[in-house]
């Protein structure tokens, strides 16, 4: 426990100590999310089911934001480990949408390209899902899985561990049981430009 604490201190000491109070204000301005109301009760962290895989606990992410440690928050594992189960958001006594803060940071990390497909497979999955959706209107599961494996490079590890075969077998099972369509369904969007205008 003590060793972990010392390690965390070192991580924080590695980053430049330039304080940027404007991040919390920026989040409030952009999303109405009152991050500065946090009084560190840690209710968010206590209810979070995924703390075991996080480098910063949810309350620590909020603290980093208040301290203006943007780099540290954007590069944290935590924001990509969050499953958006909304337990923290539901229970926060100060009305902070903590899961929404995680979204804000993920969106910013994506815009600023501080995450990559190869290093962050969760990000790789979101990207292929998002692109498939923008292109076809609806998501075609086999296509996004194949794209994900290729883009992230996860296929290599899966080939080595043998779990790629397992996935193929599962795919065949689903196909046999009418739970997979080989071709995506078509959507007539009536010349509507969803997705293409904003990008």
């Amino acid at each position: 426990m003590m060793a972990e604490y010392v390690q965390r201190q070192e991580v924080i000491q590695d980053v430049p100590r330039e304080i940027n109070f404007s991040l919390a204000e920026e989040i409030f301005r952009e999303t109405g999310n009152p991050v500065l109301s946090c009084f560190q009760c840690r209710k968010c962290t206590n209810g979070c089911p995924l703390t075991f895989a996080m480098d910063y606990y949810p309350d620590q992410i909020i603290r980093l934001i208040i301290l203006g440690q943007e780099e540290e928050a954007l590069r944290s594992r935590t924001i990509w480990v969050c499953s958006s189960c909304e337990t923290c958001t539901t229970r926060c006594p100060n009305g902070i949408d903590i899961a929404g803060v995680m979204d804000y940071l993920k969106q910013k990390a994506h815009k600023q390209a501080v995450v990559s497909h190869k290093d962050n497979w969760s990000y790789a999955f979101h990207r292929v899902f998002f692109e498939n959706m923008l292109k076809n209107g609806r998501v075609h599961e086999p296509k996004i899985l194949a794209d994900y494996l290729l883009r992230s490079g996860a296929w290599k590890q899966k080939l080595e561990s043998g779990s790629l075969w397992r996935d193929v077998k599962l795919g065949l099972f689903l196909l046999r049981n009418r739970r997979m369509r080989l071709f995506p369904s078509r959507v007539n969007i009536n010349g509507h430009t969803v997705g293409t205008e904003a990008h």
Partner: protein
Amino acid sequence: MVDVTLYPGCSLEGTAQDYRDSLEIACSRLGVNLIELENWICCGATAAHSLDEFLALEFPARNLVLAEKRGLDVVVPCALCFNRLKTTEKHLLKNTHPELTKKYPFKGTIKIHDLLAYLTTPDMLKGISSLVKKPLEGLKLVSYYGCMVNRPPRITDAQNHENPTQMDRLVETLGATAIDWPFKTDCCGASHVVARPDLVFVLVKKLYDRAIAQEANGIVVSCQMCHANLDMYQDQISEYFGERYHIPVFYFTELINLAFGDERQIGWLSRHVVDPLPTLRECGLI
């Protein structure tokens, strides 16, 4: 018959086709005429709200406007689609993004229901009770509601988000035993199963262990992501932890069909990875 608009969502055209088949039968027996929303598009799911705030609202907004033109309430079987549609509904009605509201003038004249809530109103339960032909005696089930139809309640309008009971009441109405347990709304990890199965396995193992400790012989769900994580990966989770789990996972609509004595449903259950038929045989239900 009551006409409603069905917004199925992408996975009900794929891995959750079994859910789709079962809910169509259940609804038709209960006098609910499902009319699929024409040209619906993806709700954006986790990917959109993780990458682009505006598009995460724009995709559901388009569906809401299409549905409002149709003029019927929308029923949503997928928990995440439901959550995204409700989130967008609130944003549009509060006009949080004027450019979005301008492009998608949603007035809020229709309601968005999650399928479970829609089929478990007191009136519906009465109807269900009168149609039960084969009570599901012997099935001892924990109800697993998942996250997205409950949280956050200011979005979902859930009445009892920490301890929902509608699925438990349904289970009892169908003649099975509902086991109260503490993990009703705990997270299964959802789409993490693709990129971070290690996380999902830990979360789901906790659910199995508790269900088994409370002597459940099945888990009932109302969300296809919960179903995928609990059913499709059960053998992998067993292997990962050196356990031998065998606990069937039912959609609540499948249980309705079984209790109504629908023969087709029995055959369709073998489309799950964990075959529920041995458990049903043990209970003398087939």
